[in-house]
């Protein structure tokens, strides 16, 4: 019985933390928000091994678990680091296990060394909005995926409306890759349009596809946890320094209690994220329920923390001066992406036979 992080896991988080602490300061975030690309940061993360985490050792990977991946995602969230992590390091390496090795191997080795990245186009799986819709006929796709994470990546994992998963390469005939602006400028998201675009089938096994969706969701959960923890930490630190009425504002009971309430809500989310990530690998019968509930619950808590931490900062929190809004918006993005709380709760109820 050991429901805690191993020293290896702590070391993994520390190494990513150290790297991002050095390389992804607020100045870099601003540059990225203004349109700089994330290649350099991603190369650095790749050098740390984040792309080979999940890959089996016999494929040149480290053979770690989705919990380890989630722990990395948490640190990415803590620094609102731009990166194609979820597609490139989590979903693609798993999805490619279902593809013929002669096709998969070259992709995998280039994903591992950072030569290519992967995006995920899952709008058909998680509460389809608007006129999204992807028809697959004889390994050709037509239609469009909305809300694609990293739509400019070289490799795209595309869910068709019938639930099957396909690989599409950047530059494939009939493919348009569009970026759309969102509030979260630390993420690249957008749209893919297909017109008889050739695609490689990955799997049409519903459990496999659901497992990939759950994994992507848990990565967003971990990202929110990290971002919310940063906002809470920043609020506490600011409240200990900022003075009004000749006192540090953190000595006012109302401000202290806001910080206590954030802590009380957020602290159990850490265990919940661990459990949801652990369940992906180890508890198949619980995995989808905990992934859905974790994303719903931690999104709600994240929204509360994002708002409250901003409020504790007072006026400065509303400005760009400390950049706090990047975290606020990242949490807001994660809330809606790949299933919003209302849909997830209903899904969790259905999964339990209610």
């Amino acid at each position, binding site marked *: 019985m050991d429901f805690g992080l191993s020293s290896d896991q702590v070391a993994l988080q520390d190494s990513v933390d150290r790297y991002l602490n050095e390389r992804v300061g607020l100045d870099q975030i601003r540059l990225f928000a203004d349109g700089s690309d994330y290649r350099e940061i991603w190369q650095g993360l790749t050098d740390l091994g984040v792309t080979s985490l999940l890959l089996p050792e016999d494929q040149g990977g480290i053979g770690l678990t989705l919990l380890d991946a989630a722990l990395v995602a948490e640190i990415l969230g803590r620094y609102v680091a731009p990166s194609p992590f979820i597609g490139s390091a989590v979903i693609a390496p798993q999805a490619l296990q279902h593809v013929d090795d002669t096709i998969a191997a070259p992709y995998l080795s280039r994903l591992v060394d950072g030569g290519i990245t992967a995006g995920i186009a899952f709008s058909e799986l998680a509460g389809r909005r608007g006129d999204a819709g992807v028809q697959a006929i004889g390994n050709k796709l037509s239609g469009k995926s909305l809300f694609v994470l990293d739509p400019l990546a070289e490799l795209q994992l595309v869910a068709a409306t019938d639930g099957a998963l396909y690989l599409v390469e950047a530059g494939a005939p009939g493919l348009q890759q569009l970026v759309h602006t969102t509030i979260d400028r630390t993420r690249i998201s957008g749209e893919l349009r297909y017109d008889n675009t050739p695609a490689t089938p990955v799997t049409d096994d519903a459990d496999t596809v659901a497992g990939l969706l759950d994994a992507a969701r848990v990565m967003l959960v971990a990202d929110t946890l990290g971002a919310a923890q940063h906002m809470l930490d920043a609020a506490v630190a600011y409240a200990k320094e900022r003075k009004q009425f000749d006192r540090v504002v953190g000595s006012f009971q109302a401000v202290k209690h806001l910080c206590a309430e954030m802590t009380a809500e957020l602290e159990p989310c850490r265990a919940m994220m661990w459990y949801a990530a652990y369940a992906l690998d180890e508890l198949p019968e619980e995995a989808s329920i905990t992934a859905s509930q974790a994303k719903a619950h931690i999104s709600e808590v994240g929204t509360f923390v994002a708002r409250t931490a901003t409020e504790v900062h007072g006026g400065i929190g509303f400005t760009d001066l400390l950049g706090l809004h990047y975290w606020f918006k990242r949490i807001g993005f994660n809330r809606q992406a790949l299933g919003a*709380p209302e849909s997830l709760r209903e899904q969790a109820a259905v999964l339990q036979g209610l």
Partner: protein
Amino acid sequence: MDISYGTDYERFRAEVRSFLAKHAVDAPSNQRDYRSAKAVAWQRKLLELGYTSRTVPKRYGGYGAEPDILISRILADEFAAAKATAGFGGQGIAMLIPTLLELGTEEQRQSIIPPTLLGEMLWCQGYSEPNAGSDLASLKTNAYLDGDEWVINGSKIWTSSAHIADWMFCLVRTEPDAPKHDGISFLLFSMDTPGIEVRPLVDMTENKYFNEVFFTDVRVPAGQIVGKRGQGWQVANTILGHERELLGDPNAALTRLNGVIDLMRTETIDGRRVIDMPVFRDRLMRIQGRVMAMRFNDLRLLSAKLNQQSAPLARMIVKLQGTELRHELEKLAIDVMGEFGLGYDDNEYLRGEGLWQWNYMFYLGLIIGGGTSQIQKNIISERGLGMPKEPKVAPTAGAM
């Protein structure tokens, strides 16, 4: 109890409505447009009809009517319903003109009010400072008299429109030895005066509505003061209360609520309209219940003002409840749109011009600004409920 306005007022409402039915197309689309020919023509028309700045005396360019709360309310309601801007807003018209009418010299009124009404003299307000926010009276920007000029040094923050304003009205400390509320004066000066530097402050909505303003030996004629030396706090407070009420305007909330309903009718999840989803319906109805309560509370306040009745608690809670409610309402809209609700700026799938996200964040700013929710709760409990004041603690060393 009788919530009708009576026939005379309804006749006035009909007039306004018929004017708007014909002429609303002449209104400028942007409320912050003070410069275009269209905007100026619209403002002149409204001044002439008494539909804006109605109580400003004729000799200063206004309509010269007696204050009438119901007339004001009818104008606000009808212009909002017609989605037409009700003439120039801004702090010069909303705050400075009433102040000058009450406390300014005749010369100040004549030289300032007419160009301000016509948008030729755009004002910004210099109140808050980096270390004087919730505790405004501790402001440190100072001015001393050198001959017949004030010399100003210091800085201001949260100065909206400073980057486009022609003039500023500003609180400065002129009596450093007086108790903090008695050492402040209310000065007016051109933003072209040498020594003023304006730095825009980007906010979380990515806009630059607010600025920091720095003063280095800024020299201003001694006569450009409203009220006497050391009376600036009283001058400012003459009209401050008015601003807080505006922030919780329940009619604006109603307009937005109707917008959410429209959204719910068009947005779909897996092809099903959001309006048909009970969980979202329930959330909508919860928000509607709160909007209703605030609207009726507002009606009570209007009536109380009209009939000289007192409803202090009903008034004190407006800013707190109104801003929280709007933040929640905009949040519902974003959840209704789901991932579409994340769109911003030039996103081609933007709903409602992206104003939902903008408002969601802006109302968080308003929860904080104009007296944070924490300060509001202090006020309600101390002034409203008579609970003990926050005990004074001995100042710590190095307090800013």
